[in-house]
């Protein structure tokens, strides 16, 4: 009986010493890779049922930087729920080529603002280097909004992401409210739908997040 009580007491003490942080706050930058929005040609009907292009276009959303913030809530030792938001500007550009009346190739542009709000799950993977480096995987879904210059038009859509990353984590010698802090790097693949893509088009885009975090 005494041995059992002692063993139980040891287990409880061990649990209290590990992973007491509940909330993680991260802030930093997110880099979105370029996205091809559409390849469209201005075509007209030609004799015998064929078509004739007047000119061709390729429209893209250029790579961009956004300010990013993440709130994580610990669900278990390896599982964390995450809520993130990002805000930034980007440029939509259309490259016009092969004009039938020999107008020189040209590129026309328009700026827009991007906003995303996402929810996802993060799964901690076994750490290494004395718990300093902690890899993880993550996945989630979000809402995205593209606002053209002057808020003339707002288009909304959704995104789905999956990826992973790495924490570089430092624990205070005498942790009080701050349980851990450090740097976080996320590599994500996004599937975008709607927004500037309009309709049911899907596009893939890479993203990299570099943030500083603190856990409480």
């Amino acid at each position, binding site marked *: 009986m005494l041995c059992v009580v002692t063993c139980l007491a040891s287990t409880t003490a061990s649990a209290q010493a590990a992973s007491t942080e509940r909330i993680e706050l991260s802030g930093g930058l997110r880099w979105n890779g370029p996205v091809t*929005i*559409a390849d*469209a*040609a*201005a*075509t*007209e*009907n*030609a*004799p*015998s*049922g064929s*078509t*004739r292009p*007047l*000119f061709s*276009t390729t*429209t893209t959303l250029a790579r961009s930087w956004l300010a990013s913030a993440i709130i994580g809530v610990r669900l278990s030792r390896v599982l964390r729920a995450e809520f993130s938001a990002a805000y930034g500007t980007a440029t*939509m*550009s*259309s490259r*016009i080529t092969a*004009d*039938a*009346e020999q*107008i020189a190739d*040209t590129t*026309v*542009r*328009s700026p827009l603002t991007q906003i995303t709000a996402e929810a996802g799950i993060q799964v901690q993977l076994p750490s290494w280097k004395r718990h300093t480096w902690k890899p993880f995987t993550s996945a989630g879904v979000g809402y995205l909004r593209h606002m*053209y*210059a002057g808020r*003339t*038009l707002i*288009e909304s859509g959704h995104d789905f992401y999956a990826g992973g990353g790495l924490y570089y984590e430092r624990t205070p010698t005498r942790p009080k409210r701050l349980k851990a802090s450090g740097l976080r790097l996320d590599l994500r693949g996004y599937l975008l739908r709607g927004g500037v*893509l*309009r*309709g049911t088009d899907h596009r893939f885009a890479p993203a990299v997040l570099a943030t500083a975090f603190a856990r409480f």
Partner: protein
Amino acid sequence: MGRALHVAVAVALLVSCSRPASAYLKFGYEVNGTQRTLKWTTTPVRYYVTAAAVDGVSATQFQATIGKAFDAWAAVPTSSVAYQFMSFTSNLPGEDDGRTTLGFVHEPALDRVLASTSYLIDDVTGDLIEADIFFNSVFAWSVADAGDRTRWDLQSIATHEIGHLSGLGHSDIGETEQTATGRRVLSTGAVMFPIALGLGDISGRTLEADDIAGISDLYPDGTFNRSTGSLSGHVTKSGRGVYGAHIVAFDTRSGAMVGNFSLSSSGQFSIAGLRPGPYIVRVEPLDDADTESFFDITDPTDINFRAAYFGRLVVVPRGGDSGNVEVKVVAK
């Protein structure tokens, strides 16, 4: 009914400049000092068909094919226009009988005119009384589903003329080249382009974005103005407005093209009925058809400039206008 004003498409029509905020190339006319847009004030538009056959087309086939052409316009979801076949008649198109009549007429003197639309307007009230379409039986016609390479497709030509019957003018979305014997059509991007593609072509049976925007602008349904937007501005050359420039708004995501013209001495233009989103704006001179196919012969149309693109993407909002777009062109 007051004295009737008989107006033919090819002759005395003026381009309407009375509604620049939402202008599309519509027909306009002046009655008692007031500029009016040519359109039907009540629908369905009731029409009659001349009970006459030509080689290859019976009267019944003619009526059925005409019906398909009317259906194409009536099926535009953003337009409220409707048409109703009343009956066969022994009257010919062009007779001032108060009835809109379509039929074949033998016109050997008009050997370059496949078909034509004429209007009868009450010059006291300004109301449109009737609009007749004749199809020139000098030419060989076909109603074959897949077309006939040796004959003109009746449904395609009828679809174009019914656009006129409904109040639409010509579109300049198309390309031609001048040859020793006249103009040769290279391509068309709208049913309302003034020159037919050629024998056997059936592409004219299908409305393009430009046609759809035009009929919707004339006869909008309840959602049209709320769900679409417009793109407007000026075309200038050396600081002065250009009259008669052709402006095309190209939807970068769908590839749809909708066009209009600068219809004032300041070079002002407006293209309505556009799906919200970013557009490329292209400006070109009116050199793919005779200017008389679009404007009155006395209008000061300027074709001495090079085609050009506007230097940025223009965003068309939902239920609103893009704001002034000034496209600067240079002389050839």
